[in-house]
């Protein structure tokens, strides 16, 4: 279809319309994402409590998805700053599952190794590592590992808080483990295989 491309270029379009990225993200999102329905109204960015710290507002990010700007989207800090407060989700006139789209983009950025700041991806991965090992969260292990790796200078300042949590019995020294951890491993391993084939 080279002829068609020429027409588009003449009509002022610099690249062939390619919605594959938009569809890919939509298909990888839990539930029916409604991402294709975005009308660029900007209600999401206007509702977002952390928009000021984001590289792109959700609205901009969705326009970039539509434009097929894969690398720019996956490098954006926006999904990593999303606090999952769902303000945008309940206000979106098109019912786009915005918070879930952000989760999808995080996963895609991790797989493509395209994130700029590794703090958030490493935190998620450390957390998930603990859950996969024990079946339960393990706050002390998670916090220690995470702070040593990413905020070593914050550790002295965190000491009173950490000691307070431990001395008041709010942070367990040893992790708890579920009884049927093998069953959980079997489920997660099968789920990971299915993830690759989907």
């Amino acid at each position, binding site marked *: 279809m080279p002829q068609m491309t020429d027409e588009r270029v003449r009509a002022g379009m610099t690249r062939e319309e390619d919605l594959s990225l938009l569809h890919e993200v939509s298909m990888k999102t*839990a539930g029916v994402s409604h991402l294709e329905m975005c009308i660029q109204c900007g209600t999401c960015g206007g509702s977002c409590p*952390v928009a000021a710290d984001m590289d792109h507002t959700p609205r901009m990010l969705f326009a970039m998805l539509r434009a097929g700007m894969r690398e720019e989207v996956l490098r954006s800090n926006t999904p990593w700053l999303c606090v*999952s407060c769902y303000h945008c989700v*309940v206000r979106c006139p098109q019912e786009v599952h915005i918070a879930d789209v952000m989760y999808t983009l*995080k*996963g895609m950025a991790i797989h493509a190794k395209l994130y700029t700041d590794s703090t958030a991806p490493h935190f998620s991965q450390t957390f998930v590592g603990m859950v996969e090992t024990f079946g339960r969260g393990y706050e002390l292990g998670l916090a220690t590992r995470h702070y040593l790796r990413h905020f070593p200078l914050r550790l002295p300042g965190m000491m009173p808080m950490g000691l307070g949590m431990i001395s008041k019995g*709010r942070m367990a020294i040893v992790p708890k483990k579920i009884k049927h951890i093998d069953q*959980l491993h079997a489920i997660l*391993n*099968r789920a990971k295989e299915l993830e690759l084939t989907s």
Partner: protein
Amino acid sequence: MNKYLLYPGCSMDSSAKAYMESLNSIVEPLDLHLEEIEDWNCCGATEYLGINLIPAYSLIARNLALAAKQTSDTRTVVAPCSACYLNLAKADYYMQERPTLGAKVNEALAAGGLEYKAGTLDVRHLIDVLVYDVGLDAIRKAVTHPLSGLKVAPYMGCMLPRPDYQHRWSDHEHPTELDDLLRALGADVIDYPLTTSCCGGHMTQIGPETAFELIHRLVADADERGAQMMVTVCPMCQMNIDAYQNEMNHFFGTSYHMPILFFTQLMGLAFGKSPEDVGIGVELVSSRNALAHIGVEVPVTQEVTAPRKKEGRLPMPRRWSKHEGKKEAVK
């Protein structure tokens, strides 16, 4: 008799153990019967969903499958943690909305000899069943020590009333369930428009400056409106506002002291339980002075202070922050 399957969630026996203790203290006066789901696992919080879709939902669905399998005369699962509640409710909803997701999750569950038919269970939050099943009248009847004179800011948090696919709440942004419940206990409930604003979630771990800003908004507004304490329904909110308040104050150069307790702790107190019974005293921002307003005496506990913090130390420059300008505006 109100019978439920309980999904406690990881924080209930660690950072939010006061929530669990106080919940245990109110089951008897309210004739609640909570049966723990056997061998439940972590729901993945807000982290697993951001890595892999099918494993994340399979992790959540294992809990639903176990709950559905458990022989019991109820099909309602109650979660006291907002993040757990949302994950369980969302998994149940999305497995129906996208049948292919439901099929894949079930294929994974089958590897562990489990299955879950989406829609089999009702997933609800603790405050939902207290307000709508137990009812405010029954709660009012159980009150022996009304909390009159205690000014509280009702803090619902964000993951509870939103996205609310099951239409359980009075409003997405200004729900009144927590206000009504606290009023039934006799407390003086202040207007708190930020009731469903975010506490920062996991940003305290990965982008502290962003989190401090959000925590600051909540605490400063509650303080300005004259609240003596905030009241929460979520372990994550409690943790962020309680454990990180000191760091937030340090960051902004402020000196707020805003205790935050779980709503079940206040219920316990109103039902005549002792502060120890409802886990008071383990919060890092002490609620001692606030509770003195209603004649509740909290034993003094040793406050943990920063090491080597002495009066008259060398004059060091104040820590620089990008919010430097805002510091002046605050106090």
